[in-house]
């Protein structure tokens, strides 16, 4: 085998994907069920936390991040970090403008 054509992906079994799919479906059910209950300010936080858990499952299993090298994981963490920074900076700036 040629050294630059190797595929270093481990093959995941079919079962793992089906299991993750069940988890994603269950989480969708929970989001819809919880949306009916009024937690006040926590309602949107709950929805976002569940969405983040679902995203984590899709990223690690469906998008094979768990079998990728460290470089990929750092890559994605840096991207997410800057996305979150842009959100935080915008909101601090925005609330400052609103207050004045």
């Amino acid at each position: 085998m040629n050294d630059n054509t190797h595929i270093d992906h481990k093959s995941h079994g079919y079962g793992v994907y089906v299991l993750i799919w069940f988890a994603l479906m269950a989480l969708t059910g929970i989001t819809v069920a919880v949306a009916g209950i009024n937690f006040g300010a926590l309602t949107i936080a709950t929805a976002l936390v569940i969405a983040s858990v679902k995203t984590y499952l899709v990223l690690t299993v469906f998008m094979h991040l768990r079998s990728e090298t460290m470089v990929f994981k750092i890559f994605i963490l840096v991207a997410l970090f800057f996305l979150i920074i842009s959100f935080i900076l915008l909101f601090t700036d925005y609330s400052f403008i609103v207050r004045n």
Partner: protein
Amino acid sequence: MSSSEHTISHVHRDDVASRMGMWLFLFTELLLFGGMFILYSVYRYNNPEAFHLAAKELNTIIGTFNTMILLTSSLTMALSITAIQRNNKSLSIFFQMMTVILALGFMVNKYFEWGAKFHHGIYPGSDQLLSKPAGEILFFGLYYVMTGLHGLHVLIGICLILLMIYYTAKEVITQDNYMKLESAGLYWHLVDIIWIFLFPLFYLIT
């Protein structure tokens, strides 16, 4: 070693770089949608009541159903890659076709959902929408732009996966060389992730 042998044994291919390139592209998509999510959060922060009222007009059942369809299509896409890894060409094609069918189902639902809104006179620029409070106009503006852009991504994804079915059938995508399918899969899962956030933010505001 003759030169022809050289070209045959050293066709340049770098699977890690292909995947990394795809991830880089996905980051640009993240910024595209990220900007819209920022816009959404600022407007929602300013108009909590109007967003709440406007979101009541959306059909939660269709939204939930579409979420389930999209999650399932992500599953079939992932399964098609496992199938090709195990050299099961026909099973891989079957799963890719399932993905396309589910994606089309998503778009059909979207068509009926948007169609019902249009029927009730709620579409960008309509008199009925413009007579609503500013916050609700913003909500529907964001709703049409964000789900519309997401729908466009679904359509592009359908074309990509159809191309992958063709490549798999022609054995361009094989057990030893399936990075095209892997990249199409990464794109498809990103479309799924965006919907995972769009769904509670538009359909489940209480």
